Every structure is written in structure tokens, then in C-alpha cells.
């Protein structure tokens, strides 16, 4: 049990170190510019002089659930399928050249 706890602690510790390494990104000039731009966009939106968007119908309950699921399946499934196909191709090529 203590081994597992030690491993949990290591994973959490390393994750905290990684997070601390990312933190300075938030104080860069680029981050400040981005925040400024977003604040301006928000203010323009509230004033009503921002870019006009055509009103869209809210998605149905089925669409709200199926839409993200389809997106995730495609975003993960396509790369996974391509890797499997690539590995299969490499294995076949190897077996042919070794014959």
C-alpha cells in the first residue's frame, strides 16, 4: 500500500512542478495583450458595436449531446485509425522485405 501511496505522491508532485513551470506564461506580454483584446471585445459586445453575428437557433437536446460525442469520436478515432493503418503497413513492408 505504501508503494502505491508513494507513486501517487510522486505523480502529484511532478504534476505540481509541471504546473508551476506553466504559470509564468500568464504574466507574459502576449498574455496581457490577449486579455486586453478579449476585454475590448467584451466591452464592444456589451455596447452593441461589436461584429454582428447572425442569431443561431439553440441546438436540440440530442444535438447538444451527439454533437460533442461525434467531434470527440472523429478527433480521437481518425488519428487512432491512421496510426493502426500505418503500423500495419510498416509490418507488412517489413515482412515483405525480409522474405
Amino acid at each position, binding site marked *: 500500500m505504501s*508503494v502505491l501511496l508513494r507513486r501517487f505522491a510522486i505523480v502529484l508532485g511532478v504534476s505540481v512542478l509541471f504546473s508551476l513551470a506553466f504559470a509564468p506564461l*500568464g504574466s507574459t506580454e502576449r498574455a496581457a495583450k490577449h*486579455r486586453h483584446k478579449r*476585454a475590448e471585445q467584451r466591452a464592444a459586445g456589451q455596447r452593441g458595436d461589436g461584429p454582428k453575428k447572425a442569431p443561431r437557433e439553440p441546438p436540440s437536446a440530442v444535438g447538444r449531446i451527439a*454533437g460533442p460525442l461525434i467531434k470527440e469520436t472523429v*478527433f480521437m478515432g481518425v*488519428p*487512432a485509425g491512421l*496510426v493502426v493503418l500505418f*503500423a500495419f503497413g510498416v509490418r507488412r513492408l517489413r515482412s515483405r522485405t525480409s522474405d
Partner: protein
Amino acid sequence: MATPPRISTRTKLAVDVTLLLSLMVVSAPQATGIGLHEWLSVLFVPVFVVHLVLNWDWIARVYRRFLKPLGATTRINAVWDLLIYGVMVFVFFSGVLASRAALPAFLTAFVPDAFWNDLHHVTSNLLLPLLGIHLGLHAKWIVRAIRARKESA
């Protein structure tokens, strides 16, 4: 020194399936709503940590031998897994700083950050194809584990 417990393929497969399904749920804030998305993400973190802990032996073995001769597939897996881990931690971290429901429930003065919010959105979308490739790289193990589970059932 205590010996680490032996973890069965069945347990690993069960955790991996739980991880994949919970990832699909937390990656869909449009479906769950932001509040539930954030709270489910908090619950997702321990599952992710358990996934790492269960595969500890492989992780330790590979990274210890990383600079020594190692098979190309294993090396690609090791680099890819490290990349996914880094992006995953980034997604958690940016998600916390962009929190609109979970963190403000404890810290009333907390204001979600637009910069981290946008980065969270971009990196969480990037995570999906990275994980897809991860699944593809481990497809052989997944198929073997499912077959073994079917045979033992």
C-alpha cells in the same frame, strides 16, 4: 522495501475504459454545462493519476532506460506519453485558472482569466488527437487485453 502489488490486465483495462469514457464526458462542456464539466473534471484527475500509477512499472522501466538502446516503438510511446502528460497537466492547470463554477464556489474573489480560458479551449481540443494517437500506438495491447477478458469470461 515493500514490493509493489501486481496489477492484473483486467484491472488496467477497467481503469482505461473508465478513463476514456470519463474523458469523453468531461470533454463535452456543451453537453454537460460548465458547472458539471468542472466538477466532473475534478473527479477525472484521480482516475488519470490511477492510470499512471497502474502503469508505473512500464513508465519507470522505459524512462530509466531511455538513453540506453531501446526499441523504436517503445521510444515513440515514451515520448508521446510524456507529451500527453504535459498537455493533460496544462489542460488541468489552465482549466483551474479559467474556472467559472468550481473555484469561485470556494474563492468568491476569484475571477476567471480569459487568457487561460482560451488556452484551455485550444489545448483540450489538441488533447483529443494526441490521445487518439496514444490509443493507436497501444492498439495491440488493447486488443490483447479485450481478447483475454473475453476468454476468461
